């Protein structure tokens, strides 16, 4: 019979998606996870992964065709060697770790005159560009929860990617002024009928890559009360007319947009068009828009980079000053054009997530991979730096998808004798600064 000596309940923040649910409760029995309350399957998986056997456990350095185990100090020394001997290293990832680690990464990139980029390049980069150009009319999720009576999801299926978004912040949440979903309406706009579309009051199906035209047509209908003469064939105009009616009746509306809008068609022009539509809608009532950010701290990566360099991602320090030009300085541009000679990945998996044409350019390149889990990138790496899982085994700060900072608390003490991202990067920074 197992005798439980110590049972405690830890209040935690889920470090998985941009919702950063901070109402999670984990019951620990003698330091082991017994139950997890208020987390979705993704959050539960992330918290349970602390006890998984599929982890990076050893500091490894490539030697011939093998990797040999080394001490943390040897791994840090070799990392510093590779970074210092590179002409133009790129430090990439940063969305699955704390703001504290992101800050250290930016300092290292600056000293090395390298490039610092985050996973925004493979998700909401187009929105970041549009935001820099025109500003984003936005709000917090708390305001949405308390006030929104019309919720639009455009190119996003929260039921698969942000499973608690409906319940905590939008359609099914109980707000102060809008107490239940009988008083809220939801429109889903997508190229296919998603699980979220099936729950919507109105589903509008659009043709792939046509979002820009659809937004412009909707803008025209809202402004002039009728569709433009040359109608967009990519959508049913009656559907748009009905949506426009619901939009004009709303007191507080929000458009949550996902990769279905940021990764298609005219790229950042989609977002320019959306922001301009939202500004128009503010002539009738209160309207805001919020990106459905995927990684739990990709928003933090943009915020930290912006306050340290003036730019949200793809920051090139090679001239000594921060320089930003997506199309030239994202990881995708630089690897594709063979402009970097070293890739350091922190809390990300570029080789498993970047376009195939870009991944093929990393063959023969030096790679350093810092990650709690094995990935295609750690597999190919010359140096593997295992770490604790941020938000589960170690703490820090992260920013929710609406730009609200949330503290991450360690949930349990790790059984592994490893450092956090922050501690490891501090050692690398010290080593590099000392040698420079």
């Amino acid at each position, binding site marked *: 019979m197992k005798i439980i000596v110590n049972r405690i309940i830890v209040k935690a923040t889920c470090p998985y998606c941009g919702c950063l649910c901070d109402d999670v409760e984990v019951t620990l029995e003698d330091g082991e996870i017994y139950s997890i309350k208020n987390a979705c399957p993704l959050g539960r998986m992330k918290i349970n992964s602390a006890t998984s056997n599929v982890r990076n456990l050893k500091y490894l350095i490539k030697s011939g065709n093998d990797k040999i185990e080394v001490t943390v100090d040897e791994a840090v020394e070799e990392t510093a060697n590779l970074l210092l001997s590179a002409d133009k290293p790129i430090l990439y990832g940063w969305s699955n770790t704390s703001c504290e680690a992101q800050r250290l990464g930016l300092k290292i990139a600056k000293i090395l005159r390298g490039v610092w980029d985050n996973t925004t390049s493979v998700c909401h980069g187009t929105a970041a560009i549009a935001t820099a150009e025109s500003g984003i009319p936005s709000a917090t999720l708390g305001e949405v929860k308390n006030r929104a009576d019309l919720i639009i999801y455009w190119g996003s299926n929260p039921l*698969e990617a942000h499973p608690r978004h409906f319940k905590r912040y939008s359609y099914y949440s109980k707000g102060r002024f809008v107490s239940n979903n009988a008083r809220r309406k939801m429109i889903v706009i997508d190229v296919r009928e*998603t699980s979220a579309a099936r729950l919507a009051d109105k589903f509008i199906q659009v043709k792939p890559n046509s979002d820009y035209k659809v937004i412009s047509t909707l803008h025209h209908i809202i402004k002039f009360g009728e569709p433009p003469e040359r109608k967009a064939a990519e959508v049913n105009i009656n559907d748009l007319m009905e949506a426009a009616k619901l939009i004009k009746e709303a007191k507080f509306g929000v458009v949550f947009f996902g990769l279905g809008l940021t990764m298609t068609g005219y790229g950042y022009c989609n977002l320019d068009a959306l922001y301009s539509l939202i500004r128009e809608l503010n002539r009738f009532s209160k309207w805001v828009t919020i990106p459905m950010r995927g990684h739990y701290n990709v928003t933090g990566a943009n915020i930290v980079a912006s306050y340290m360099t003036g730019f949200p991602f793809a920051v090139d320090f090679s001239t000594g000053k921060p320089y930003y030009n*997506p199309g030239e300085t994202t990881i995708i541009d630089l690897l594709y054009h063979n402009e970097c000679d070293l890739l350091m990945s922190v809390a990300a998996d570029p080789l498993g997530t970047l376009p195939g*044409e*870009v991944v093929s350019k990393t063959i023969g390149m030096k790679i350093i991979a810092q990650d709690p*889990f094995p990935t295609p990138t750690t597999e190919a790496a010359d140096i593997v730096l295992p770490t604790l899982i941020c938000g589960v085994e170690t703490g820090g700060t992260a920013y929710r998808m609406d730009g609200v900072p949330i503290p991450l608390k360690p949930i349990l003490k790790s059984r592994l004798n490893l450092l956090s991202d922050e501690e490891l990067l501090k050692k690398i920074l010290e080593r590099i600064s000392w040698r420079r």
Partner: protein
Amino acid sequence: MKAILITARSIRQGELIEGLKHLMSTELNFCDLNPEDMLKIDVKNGDKVVLRRDNSEIFLKARCNPTLPLGLVYVIVHPEVNKLIPYNKSLRGMMPGKGLEIEIEKIP
């Protein structure tokens, strides 16, 4: 047959991201098609198909999805699928992960 590729996430894919990526190629090795498109390329549920773009190709199993519009192929995003994604200068260094024109055909 020419088709438009749409990649998207799923809960199961999300569960495999941290530490279980090696299971993705076996668990997520299917693509959804409208039944009419399946007839057009003469495949049934579970038949193998090849998805091609330029010189890249990947092999998946066909799965019937009547809610999908004609001409669309829906694949849950995983490292294998990224082989089809190109570099696109006009997207300013971003990833054109959705709405790509591809070829799909049955593997005899």
